[in-house]
């Protein structure tokens, strides 16, 4: 039994292929203008790497922002349920998942079986999302992957007060003009991000174990700040935290396939 999960977000798309309950392979790509094209490209890439074709896949579940537009998917499930499910499958003790993606962030609580118990999602605003980190790194002139480690070298982190990403960008420019070090500004960015996310976790209620998924979980600066603010340590995944949504979708695909085959 081979199933697929395909997660098309606002900035990246991921695919995960499962065979008999084990991960066969996965890929991450930058999204194309159309969700369907992103889905096809990331699936093609994953299948090619495994020497498989679409005919080999028994069931596909799509998720993410573009989930409803993907024609090769058999079903779609919200990314909120998928992140919870994927994280729980990798770490069965997980109760809380923080997912920070390209354009939204969410705090998710799952029950002992990995089913969605409650969730809180940010409102229509880029603040505290991957996209805002990209904007800030551009202003700082560093690659997004360097932003987190840079912030760890800070001596006097700045305070960013504006919640709005655009206003925060202006604030960052102002700090740079004042000759603050890029490390201090980067630390301010991590702190501001973490504050936004902490609010969401507060609303959904923190229960350990807790882990982070999504692209921003690769930013060591944000992760460290958030751990300090919440007074807890995140459990680490054995897989890339960016593929957890697609993994959850693939797990739901397996569930649905089993359920369908039982029904006459």
């Amino acid at each position, binding site marked *: 039994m081979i199933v697929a999960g395909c997660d098309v977000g606002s900035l990246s798309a991921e695919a995960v292929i499962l065979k008999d309950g084990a991960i066969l392979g996965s890929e991450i790509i930058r999204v194309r203008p159309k969700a369907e094209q992103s889905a096809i490209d990331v699936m093609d890439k994953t299948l090619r790497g495994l020497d498989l074709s679409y005919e080999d896949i028994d069931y596909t579940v799509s998720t993410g922002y573009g989930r409803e537009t993907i024609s090769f998917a058999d079903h779609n499930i*919200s990314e909120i349920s998928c992140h919870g499910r994927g994280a729980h499958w990798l770490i069965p003790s997980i109760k809380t998942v923080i997912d920070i993606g390209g354009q939204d962030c969410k705090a998710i609580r799952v029950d002992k079986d990995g089913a969605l118990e409650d969730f809180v999602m940010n409102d229509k605003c880029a603040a505290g999302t991957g996209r805002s980190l990209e904007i800030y790194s551009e202003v700082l002139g560093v690659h997004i992957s360097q932003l987190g480690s840079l912030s760890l070298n800070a001596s006097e982190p700045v305070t960013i007060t504006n919640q709005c990403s655009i206003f925060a960008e202006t604030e960052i420019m102002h700090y740079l003009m004042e000759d603050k070090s890029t490390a201090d500004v980067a630390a301010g960015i991590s702190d501001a991000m973490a504050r936004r996310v902490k609010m969401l976790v507060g609303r959904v209620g923190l229960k350990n174990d807790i882990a982070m998924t999504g692209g921003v979980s690769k930013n060591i600066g944000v992760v460290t700040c958030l751990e300090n603010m919440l007074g807890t340590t995140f459990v680490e995944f054995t897989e890339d935290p960016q593929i957890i949504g697609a993994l959850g979708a693939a797990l739901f695909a397996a569930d649905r396939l089993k359920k369908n085959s039982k029904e006459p």
Partner: protein
Amino acid sequence: MKPLAKLASISKTLKNEVVTDWINQGKKVVGYVCTYMPEEILLAADILPYRITGKGARDTSLADAYLTRVNCSFARCCLEQGFRGEYDFLEGSVWVNGCDHIRRCYDNWNAKIPRPFMYMLPVPHMFSPEGRQWYKEEVVKFKDAVEAHFNVNITSEKLSEACKIYNETRRLLRKLYDLRASDAPPFTGAEASIILSAGFVMPKTEYNRLLGSLLNEAEKKSKAPQEKVRLLMTGSLMDDSEFVENVEDMGAIVVTDALCFGARYFWDRVAENGDPFEALVDRYYTHVPCPRMAGEYPTRRDFILNQIERAQVKGVILQHIKFCDLHGTDNAMLKMDLEKKGIASIELEREYGPLGDAGRVRTRVQAFLEKIGG
């Protein structure tokens, strides 16, 4: 045309065919924004009360120049349609100090695009014998102003007659909600939203006729119970059937509500015995309260809990328009109280007007339905 299609066509355009007919008969149309304005007074003067909305606004570039960043998009869309001349068919409009957003809409409307009859009807924010007395005085002043401006005499007989027509609307809408509460609702929430919207922008006699035949038709049809998750929707002003459809698309059906464009509008009737003016004042002052009435949260909460029970509701959509503090804070309290009763709910912040963020709403609703086992 079938009644539902006819109502849909009426609700779609601001100056619809029924309004045009009314005007062609040489009669006046007066706009209003808030359900604390006793419509029967206008009807008794043979004036068509017409509820102003922001329907059809594609952007708000004109209104944006006059309103602040923190004014809600409903006030913005209403003003925009006013600025664009879409409401030029109104002889005037009656406003209520419902909230600050709508007051700012009135300020600009009055300053920039006044019509011959502009009226602000102040409504007290609290329930008390003194408040009731004050409200009555204001309604008397309003009636006098209508009589003076339109050169009419609003007699007790005419008022009684108007109340009867409106009570018939209320009876029919209650029947609509009984059908929606049944195991096999004959209408989706989106359809109900269209049916309700039309009622605010057409003469009630004509509306009663169409609604009556629509309900008779629906009663005859036998419908199989639906497997969809039954929802209640409450919160800010909601006349947008597409928003409801967007929610229902995810595998749900909205079977009831506590909206001022829904159940709160028609649930209470005007007493038909005794003095019609006193009865009218009582009804409008004490009807299921909007959160603009201070300290009346428990009444609204209990109304919602009753609706949940009678319509077998499984989940509640707590939506509010961005910057609508009245409903935003109300929803936060409702969420906690619903939780205590074991009823799942989700808070959604939205904009009034074109559905730019449909995807955002769909993701949250889908996850909510997955959570409650839809």
